[in-house]
């Protein structure tokens, strides 16, 4: 993008050089001015509703009277002269707050938002402090809008942000504004759970306490009494940045942490509400040992554990380790050091490992860039091949929605309407959208932004992909579809991608079809070689799937087949429920062939119940760790909870085991920096990490970065039942953060921001103080470092198209996986509130197939796939093809099924 020519404007008598095409409010906020505002949100643009951001505009240098204008609606133009502290304007802003307060209940002492409330901040900032309104206030009925969000409508100040986020931005349908005048009501038509996958952002978007986090309410603590840490979401492969907050050793809430390249201001509901597993009673907090195969697990102290481990490692020679795509790089690396890389297994199937490697190799060697979510938001054409983004990478679905609006912004720009002017852009756009093509086996809520959707089995979709690649470049393997309509769709997609400035190809490995991945790679290759544009984004299954792929190791299937040949002395499994990744028969066979099984994990599951030694592993909230997201961005999370009992970071446990096993001082990992140094030294691909992350010695003017805000209260009182003196501050040797309120309160580096606060700004709106400009980058650059750097002048290579025609025998169905935002991720499914949203296991079946089988919706069927027999409810789904079935996967209690696959479906009434 060409650099904008800077323009000069005058604010409060001082001249500033600023970027053109912005609105005055965002410009002032970027410059650090405290302009009060409500309805403006940088991701949503300006609408001019609240009238709080008033400033005074002067016609020229001679004009002394000036005119009040709303800064959010004022384009920044050369020579603009404004005052932010003009007396009349200040009175007007105070009058706006006074007006809003006429109906606000002043219930701050019992309001969950209190202390972190934008309305409180704005009230103080504008100076309105005396109530002249001496009449009755308006009152509303609140609604029950589900388990995630609490609704308290009387506090509403009618900024319209909620509906603008929920409807206009996130595509939600079931929240709206009703009625008119001072009776406008923001809610649902009737009580009921908010349906949209991003509803939790209402908590942050709402400037007051109308929408608050109901899960926090369940174990409420004042916001200023939270101890916080910068963290990274572990519930999908996108690596959204989060702030994790603690009180009394329990994790109280998750908020989004701004990252201009990744998640921006928002996170999805899985990410926000999936945290409760950390506090769950199923947490393993003590080490347990089984004295014999038939004995029960009993809790042991460290010394017993260590001596048992010593015996184990002395007696047993062959030790293998199974890592995990949900464990940190450091934990996986520590395990591979413990067992040796030859004995290190990835803990995922051969198929998943192969496809992941195909993806990583392609991204590393093809020279084709892989985009951040921010870059996807800027796309003007998108092709989604096979991946159900809403359920496997929700925030990417949100980015695609934003991309769909670029067409409208472009149309508006031609009429001189800037992109931030939200309502006029929508008026001009009407239903126009950027060309987005979605080719998936069945519909989802993202379909509504698609220009064309394509439905078929995974081979059909891969075929469409190969045909698109072939239409894009003659060098790509020639591939034509026999179906005329399908071929012309492929050609149309190729043309739209070709004509776009920023085309994005999205696919992912969750469908489990390598041909489909290859087709997506070929499209990107064809587009890039022919047009020198286009980027490829690949969704992976888990938070560190990409990081794991960097480590040398074999697959889980390799471990299972290994044990068929030889007996293993000790098996160490790191944060991995293998029952979710292989059939119980295989897993149990693996266990049976191992003399000793050691499991490090956080929650009790089938694995830990079978293990001989169970080691309590810290969760993301109790550990430091590095995760590599789907675009190869390494990001670090920091602990917010001080480890109690025996809970310890997996890498620390493993370091201990290395010490015990080798009995040598060669590995001395005492603090987090020690293991990261070793990790960086172990693999050239990690070299980039060295220059980026602040180590634990990092100080800001000789001070650590406090996890707690200045207003943190009750440091003495919270332990008053034990002692009235201060208990002392827990040391933190692993990071530059401190478990205290003392330290440097200046803005830390972006990767180390534990919370947002700035004088006068106590709510999340303080985030603007940490950014170059609203919706821009974190000051000093966004957190995280890309490990994948696209090579220049890469050789163009294509995958061969190898599509086998699908032939089904009678009664046979093609089974594809169906993922659920709530349910398909292991750890978040254990969160008590989120688990209420998990559906019962189901099978999608075309209504015609259901009819042929004499089945009705919700009826139980018998599904036979491989050697697994499932009794499961059917859901009729018209978008899924004939002869296909979609099986909900990874839900709690669902056994492992290798998908895609073929299976038989029986009507149980007929069978019986």
């Amino acid at each position, binding site marked *: 993008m060409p650099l904008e020519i800077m323009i000069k404007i005058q604010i409060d008598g001082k001249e500033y050089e600023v970027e053109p095409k912005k609105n005055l409010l965002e410009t002032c906020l970027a410059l650090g001015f405290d302009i009060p505002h409500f309805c403006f949100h940088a991701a949503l643009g300006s*609408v*001019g*509703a*609240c*009238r*709080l951001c*008033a400033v005074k505009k002067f016609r020229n240098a001679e004009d002394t009277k000036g*005119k*009040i*204008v709303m800064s959010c*609606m004022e384009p920044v133009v050369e020579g603009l002269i404004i005052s932010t502290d003009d007396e009349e304007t200040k009175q*007007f802003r105070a*009058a*706006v707050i006074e*007006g*809003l307060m*006429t*109906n606000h209940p002043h219930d701050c002492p019992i309001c969950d938002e209190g202390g972190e409330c934008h309305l409180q901040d704005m009230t103080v900032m504008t100076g309105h402090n005396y109530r*002249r*309104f001496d*009449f009755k206030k308006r009152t509303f009925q609140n609604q029950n809008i589900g388990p995630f969000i609490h609704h308290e409508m009387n506090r509403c*100040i*009618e900024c*319209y942000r909620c509906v603008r986020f929920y409807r206009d931005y996130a595509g939600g349908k079931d929240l709206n*504004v009703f*009625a*008119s*005048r*001072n*009776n*406008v009501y923001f809610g649902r038509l009737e009580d009921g759970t908010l349906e949209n996958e991003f509803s939790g952002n209402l908590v942050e978007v709402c400037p007051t306490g109308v929408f608050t986090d109901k899960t926090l309410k369940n174990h409420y603590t004042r916001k200023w009494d939270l101890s916080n840490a910068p963290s990274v979401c572990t519930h999908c492969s996108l690596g959204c940045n989060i702030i994790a907050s603690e009180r009394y050793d329990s994790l109280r809430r998750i908020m989004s942490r701004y990252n201009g390249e990744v998640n921006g201001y928002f996170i999805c509901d899985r990410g926000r509400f999936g945290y409760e597993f950390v506090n769950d009673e199923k947490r393993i907090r003590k080490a347990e040992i089984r004295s014999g195969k038939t004995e029960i697990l009993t809790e042991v102290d460290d010394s017993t554990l260590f001596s048992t481990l010593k015996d184990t490692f002395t007696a047993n020679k062959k030790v293998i380790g199974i890592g995990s795509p949900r464990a940190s790089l450091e934990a996986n690396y520590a395990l591979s050091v413990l067992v040796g890389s030859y004995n290190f297994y990835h803990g995922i199937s051969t198929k998943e490992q192969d496809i992941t490697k195909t993806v990583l190799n392609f991204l590393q060697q093809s020279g084709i860039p892989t985009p951040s979510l921010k870059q996807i938001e800027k796309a003007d054409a998108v092709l989604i091949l096979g991946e159900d983004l809403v359920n496997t990478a929700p925030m990417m679905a949100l980015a695609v929605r934003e991309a769909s609006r670029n067409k409208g912004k472009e*149309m*508006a720009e031609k*009429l*001189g*309407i800037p992109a931030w*002017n939200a*309502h*006029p852009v929508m*008026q*001009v*756009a*009407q239903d126009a959208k950027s060309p987005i093509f979605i080719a998936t086996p069945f519909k989802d809520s993202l379909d509504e932004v698609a220009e064309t959707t394509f439905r078929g089995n995974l081979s059909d979709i891969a075929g469409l992909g190969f045909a698109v690649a072939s239409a894009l470049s003659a060098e790509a393997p020639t591939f034509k579809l026999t179906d005329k309509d399908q071929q012309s769709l492929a050609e149309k997609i190729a043309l739209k991608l070709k004509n776009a400035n920023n085309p994005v190809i999205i696919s992912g490995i969750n469908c489990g079809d390598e041909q489909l991945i290859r087709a997506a790679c070929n499209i990107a290759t064809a587009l890039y070689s022919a047009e020198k544009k286009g980027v490829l984004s690949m969704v992976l299954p888990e938070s560190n799937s990409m990081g794991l792929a960097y480590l040398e190791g074999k697959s889980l299937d390799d471990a299972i087949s290994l044990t068929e040949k030889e007996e293993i002395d000790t098996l160490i499994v790191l944060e991995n429920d293998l029952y979710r990744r292989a059939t119980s028969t295989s897993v149990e066979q693996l266990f049976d062939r191992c003399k000793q099984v050691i499991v490090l994990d956080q929650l009790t599951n089938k694995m830990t119940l079978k293990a001989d030694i169970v080691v309590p592993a810290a969760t993301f909230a109790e550990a430091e760790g590095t995760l590599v997201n789907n675009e190869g961005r390494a990001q670090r999370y920091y602990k917010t909870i001080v480890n109690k009992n025996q809970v310890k970071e997996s890498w620390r446990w493993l370091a201990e085991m290395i010490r015990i096993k080798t009995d040598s001082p060669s590995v001395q990992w005492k603090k987090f920096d020690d293991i990261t140094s070793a990790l960086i030294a172990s693999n050239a691909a990690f070299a980039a990490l060295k220059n980026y992350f602040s180590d634990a010695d990092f100080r800001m003017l000789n001070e650590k970065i406090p996890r707690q805000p200045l207003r943190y209260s009750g440091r003495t009182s919270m332990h008053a039942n034990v002692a009235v003196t201060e208990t002392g501050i827990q040391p933190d040797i692993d990071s530059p953060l401190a478990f205290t309120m003392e330290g440097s309160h200046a803005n830390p580096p972006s990767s180390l921001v534990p919370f947002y606060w700035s004088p006068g700004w106590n709510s999340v709106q303080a985030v603007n103080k940490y950014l170059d400009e609203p919706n821009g980058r974190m000051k000093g650059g966004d957190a995280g470092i890309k490990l994948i750097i696209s090579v220049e002048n890469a050789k163009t290579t294509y995958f061969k198209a190898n599509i086998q025609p699908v032939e089904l025998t009678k009664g046979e169905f093609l089974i594809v996986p169906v993922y659920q935002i709530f349910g398909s991720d292991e750890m978040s499914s254990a969160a008590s509130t989120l688990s209420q949203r998990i559906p019962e296991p189901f099978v999608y079946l075309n209504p015609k197939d259901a009819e042929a089988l004499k089945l009705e919706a919700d009826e139980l069927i018998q599904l036979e796939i491989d050697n697994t027999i499932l009794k499961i409810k059917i859901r009729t789904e018209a978008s899924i093809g004939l002869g296909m079935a979609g099986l909900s996967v990874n839900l709690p209690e669902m056994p492992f099924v290798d998908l895609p696959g073929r299976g038989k479906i029986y009507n149980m009434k007929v069978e019986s």
Partner: protein
Amino acid sequence: MERPLTQHIHSESSPLNLKEYQQVGGYAGVQKALKEMTPAEITNLVKTSNLLGRGGAGFPTGVKWSLVPMDKEEPKYLVCNADEMEPGTFKDRYLLEGNPHQLIAGMIIAAYAIQAQTAYIFLRWAYKKAEAELRKAIAEAYAAGLLGKNILGTGYNLEMNVHSSAGRYICGEETALLNSLEGKRAIPRTKPPFPAISGLFGKPTVVNNVETLCWISHIVENGADWFKGLSLTETGGTKVFGISGKVKKPGLWELPLGTTIREILEVHAGGMLEGYGFRGLLPGGASTDFLIEEHLDVKMDFSTVGAVGSRMGTGTMIILDDKTCPVAFLHNVEKFFALESCGFCTPCREGLPWVVKILEAIENGNGRMEHLDILKQQTKYMGPGNTFCAHAPGAAEPLQSGLNYFHDDFVSHINNKKCPWKS
């Protein structure tokens, strides 16, 4: 004296049908415009005539049309604003019920001038009779080839639709009207862009008032100079003026622009009813500032009424007599505006209900002197530029002038803790 707009309206009989209207010269302007003039010539003619919008704002109609981009092949729309909901205003109703063909003729020419192929009449929900007459007249026009495809063999196509509003005052604001017409919440739109650039369904659109559009055919037939000559002031044309209140003959009269308020009140309306004294008037609907005795010789025109601190607005006056309490009067007016606020921007949504509560308290004898300061401050706070649209500034107009002209009445309510007009 010429009465071009109302010459064929007879309140005792039903409106002229198409044939009858054509016999008295109706639709001659359409013939001339479509067959002899280019769109640009029509726009220029209307510009030259200085026809100012009769909906209340007085924006030059020709200028509005000329803002429509004519170089692109895209749908364009003409919308007639017939959502006449200004309290005290009933002039459009008279024109709609009395001579719907006059409006249709004007709309055909206006649509042709901006090359719109679709026109809507956005009609106040309560105007049932007008709706029936319009639908009948439009059907006649279609049948006669004056609407639809290839009008009068010229190749020009125009579809015309009547849309009955759901009944919100804010729909009279042209951009809220467009949102409503699109099926969206009736809240005003951000300006710019103006409807001429991005209007109905995001396409170039002209929104004109009924009375404005009724003029078009006459101007095309008789020329700009004729139109200019009709008024006593520099603004051209006549105006349908009206009076409601305690006068001898409340009603509507088509008179030259520039006729004095005194003439309208004393001659045409016959003066105040016996036993009632004049205290003041709202010159152009409820959202205009009060004028009082000393203003009776002001000429009714946009600029002349503006010069004495009010607006001519719709030109239909509401008279305040001496047997009506001005506080109760204002309470009634502000209650209307508070109820009709769309709720989008803060000063209007929160300010108006507060004003209403204060006026109610004062009227009921519960007022305090401090309330008068709040009322005064609220009128400034809701002033032009401070709000999203003109609704609250309009509502503030009668209040700010009322506080000024009837200050003693407010004070007496507060001091005596009761309304002097109530026994």
